[in-house]
């Protein structure tokens, strides 16, 4: 202890004359730092209501509630997160994980109110003074808790692809599948968009857990064509995927395929449920496409004896005859069909209803009939010269390719149309060594074909001619009957009516022509309903059977009730919708046969 110890403390007095450290609020406002984690903001238009914020919130501070003026729709639950600030700890994990990136935080420090209930609100829906604040916590550049990039699918190179009919998409390895499955947040937004309402989060979880039997069981709850749908499904689910709102959607289709690919057919029975005891009832199904066989599967699970009548020599419908083997190899399809047949479903191949057996006889011999005959009739170009021998129809070309027949397309091929049949026909022609032009009446973005299909067709070398209005087909001058001139008019897209899609309008004088060895028309397809007589009592409107919500067309006296579904009936006209229709009809038929809900 020295003298300094008595004097030094008085040094504090020098501070008496200094400016105080404190801030005089509200005179000297001190805003939060730019990154400050204040109250939440939500871009309610970008938010898809997936609830991942709720899932990560360790405080249980987030509820998903219906938001005024927002309805549930594809890819949006219509719900929005409500934050309870009695629980929130401002950790902002919700912001970090938000798939769409709609959540953020303002840098507002202060919010005082006497009513505790106001501290529970739906950001972005209930207006707050800090809405739209440019400052506040955002997840940092390059920092996300979820992976926005899809695990790339190994595929054949384009050059290699067009040289063969080998399957293009190779499928995920276990590590790839599990990594991709890990991207899913199990929000279930996809389920509503799937026509069959498959338990997508459930089977993706099975992939993560490595439990293929459980995965297969979940697939078969709603879809007995996992190998086929795992390859060629139109995957509306992926358009609805919440991860897609801020990155690549989860590869739901490929994960489905992965599960089915992992289990050998001989092991299916171990994983899948056994059918009910025989009911003694018999059901006839017309058409062994995905819809008919889906109905057959679920009916046979209910114990009914099912006979499927198929006009073609092989089962599978459009999956076999409409989709080329490089997209859906026959062994994969055979596996799906093989399992259904193994349950005792009988498929009478090469039997055409209306020709070999009348529908009325089915109504007499069976307890119920399901019509799932699809759209086998190709519509014509409807231009002068459409009967030219070198004008082929796309569906027929694909079917002949399936049967292994010589196509004889020649070296230059035109494909008319922008749907999946057109793309498949074009790519089949490419694989037969042809040079292919795809002519479409509208623009590429208007094409009804899957974007992937269009992209791949182009990558494989097809030339796309947009805005080409077919005018006429003529004999090629020097090769009558052997080659043809396709004449089209270049068009410009005109917005003629507000709210409707633009109309291709011919540009006067811009008439073009091309010489082709084959012209494949793929403008659309229709049903063949010639087997339904008026006396069958099946109501038909504009070439579609009229059915109720279970697919029932008639239960008129004089025969068994008739149900119908698939492309024949629905608007979506894809395999998964046909499968869903088949499942629904199976439920309807089962209820009827057991007198339930009758």
């Amino acid at each position: 202890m020295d003298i300094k110890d008595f004097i030094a403390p008085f040094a504090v007095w020098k501070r008496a004359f200094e400016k105080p450290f404190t801030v005089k609020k509200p005179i000297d406002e001190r805003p939060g730092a730019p990154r400050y984690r204040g109250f939440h903001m939500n871009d309610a238009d970008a938010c898809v209501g997936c609830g991942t914020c709720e899932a990560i919130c360790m405080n249980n501070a987030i509820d998903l509630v219906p938001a005024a003026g927002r309805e549930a729709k594809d890819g949006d639950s219509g719900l929005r997160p409500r934050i309870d600030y009695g629980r929130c700890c401002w950790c902002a994990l919700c912001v970090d994980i938000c798939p769409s990136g709609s959540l953020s935080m303002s840098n507002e420090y202060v919010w005082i109110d006497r009513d505790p209930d106001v501290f529970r609100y739906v950001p972005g829906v209930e207006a707050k003074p800090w809405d739209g604040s440019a400052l506040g916590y955002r997840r940092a550049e390059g920092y996300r808790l979820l992976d926005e990039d899809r695990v790339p699918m190994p595929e054949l190179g384009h050059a290699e692809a067009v040289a063969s009919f080998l399957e293009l998409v190779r499928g995920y390895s276990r590590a790839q599948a599990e990594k991709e499955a890990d991207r899913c947040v199990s929000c279930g937004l996809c389920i509503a968009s799937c026509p069959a309402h498959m338990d997508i989060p459930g089977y993706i979880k099975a992939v993560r857990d490595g439990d293929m039997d459980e995965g297969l069981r979940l697939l078969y709850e709603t879809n007995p064509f996992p190998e086929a749908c795992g390859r060629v499904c139109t995957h509306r689910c992926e358009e609805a995927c919440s991860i897609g709102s801020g990155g690549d959607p989860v590869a739901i289709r490929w994960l489905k395929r992965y599960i089915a690919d992992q289990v050998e057919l001989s092991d299916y029975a171990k994983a899948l449920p056994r059918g009910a005891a025989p009911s003694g009832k018999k059901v006839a199904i017309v058409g062994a496409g995905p819809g008919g066989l889906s109905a057959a599967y679920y009916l046979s699970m209910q114990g009914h004896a099912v006979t499927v009548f198929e006009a073609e020599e092989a089962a599978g419908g459009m999956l076999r005859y409409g989709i080329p083997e490089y997209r859906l190899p026959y062994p994969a399809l055979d596996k799906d069909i093989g399992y259904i047949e193994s349950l005792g479903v009988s498929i009478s191949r090469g039997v055409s209803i209306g020709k070999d057996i009348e529908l009325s006889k089915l109504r007499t011999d069976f307890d119920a009939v399901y019509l799932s005959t699809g759209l086998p009739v190709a519509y014509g170009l409807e231009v002068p010269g459409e009967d030219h021998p070198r004008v082929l129809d796309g569906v027929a070309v694909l079917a002949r390719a399936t049967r292994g027949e010589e196509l004889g397309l020649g070296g230059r091929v035109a494909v008319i149309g922008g749907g999946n049949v057109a793309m498949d026909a074009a790519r089949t022609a490419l694989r037969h060594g042809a040079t292919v032009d795809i002519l479409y009446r509208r623009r590429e973005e208007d094409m009804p074909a899957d974007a992937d299909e269009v992209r791949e067709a182009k990558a494989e070398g097809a030339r796309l001619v947009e805005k080409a209005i077919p005018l006429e087909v003529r004999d090629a001058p020097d090769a009558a009957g052997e080659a043809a001139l396709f004449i089209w008019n270049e068009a410009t897209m005109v917005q003629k009516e507000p709210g409707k899609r633009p109309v291709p309008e011919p540009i006067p004088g811009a008439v073009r022509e091309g010489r082709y060895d084959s012209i494949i028309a793929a403008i659309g397809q229709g049903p063949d309903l010639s087997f339904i007589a008026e006396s069958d009592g099946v109501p038909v409107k504009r070439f579609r059977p009229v059915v109720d919500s279970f697919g029932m067309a008639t239960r008129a006296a004089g025969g068994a009730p008739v149900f119908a579904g698939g492309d024949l009936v629905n608007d979506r006209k894809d395999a998964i919708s046909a499968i869903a229709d088949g499942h629904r009809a199976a439920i309807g038929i089962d209820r009827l046969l057991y007198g339930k809900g009758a």
Partner: protein
Amino acid sequence: MRREKQRVIPPAERATPDLDSGKYLVMWQGPQHPGITGNMSLRLVAEGDTVVDCETHVGYLHRGFEKLMERRLYMQNFPLVCRIAVPEPDFNEYCYAAALEELAGIVIPEKAVWLRTLSLEMMRLASFLMWIGGQAGAFGHGTIAQWSVTMRDYVLDLFEELTGGRIYHMYIIPGGVRGDVPAGFYKRVLETMAVVEKNLDDIELVMFHNAVFKMRAEGLGYIPRDWVDHYGITGPNARAAGVARDLRKDSGYLAYPRLDFQPIVGTESDAYERARLRLGEMYQAIDLIRQIVDMAPKDGPFRERLPNPLYWRIPAGETYVSAECTRGEYGFYVVSDGSDKPRRVAVRGPSYTHAVSVMERLVRGVNIADVAGLMVSLHTYPPEIER
């Protein structure tokens, strides 16, 4: 020599005062917040104004963190752990993240290593600044707290800018950190360090050259060197007793092996010595922060990508990760059973021994008026006892 005379080594055995005799006074200190030491209470038995026996009572800040963690996903525990220690939350974040990374085999990017080190040293400075206000306040010197808490707030301003939070930063996330430094941040760090350093000089002058502080703190709470191992004493409490242990040096985690510093060691092992040593560690923290600002990489990623946090499973195993916090050895013991939630998380806080076993013994023979100052001199913090 004078200080040596003041040293008292309290007996290991508890006194057994006959409370019915009427000679003793039983009094409780706490559980109100007695200054900087958090909610904890001491049941003191005094003879006159001298404490003869003490029982510590903890639990007022028990929130069941370890239990809560067992039912939360690994990532969900990230915002939870910091709350175990208000004045110094970042060590929880670091130990927890490092334990998970070790179990999951994740190597964090270089920049994250440096930003974590920066964050921990800034935290050390802020924590000591709060502590020194408490230490001075416990001896009646309120002015120091006004200065030091302001300095702490300046450091918290830096945290707010870097992390978006003042108290709970939630910045050291498994895999790295949550963001890069904002533009101009390092400049503001250096400016703030200069201000803090100048204020530390003032504090040094008026607090450590102060007859009152010396008279009360010298000799108070003397910890003999051989207690260090016996009681598991760590941090400044051990170093002031001449034991040169500092996990930053000894374990060499984060960027510490590349920083130039030496553990500060004392000899006198009393309240004054410990305060003096902690002041030295504040200057040391400022020096380390300057080194970090100088050496931290300016480019590169700040976080390693982890699996989806909703399903993140960590391979079965266990580990114990510790770090040198202001009070000593802070550690997380994490046991994984391979699921998506920890099987067991145990938090080792230095106060566990400092505030209970050591405190109960040291307080014997101390004047009632010095109990608070003694407790602060051990830099105790109850939540890390109770978790």
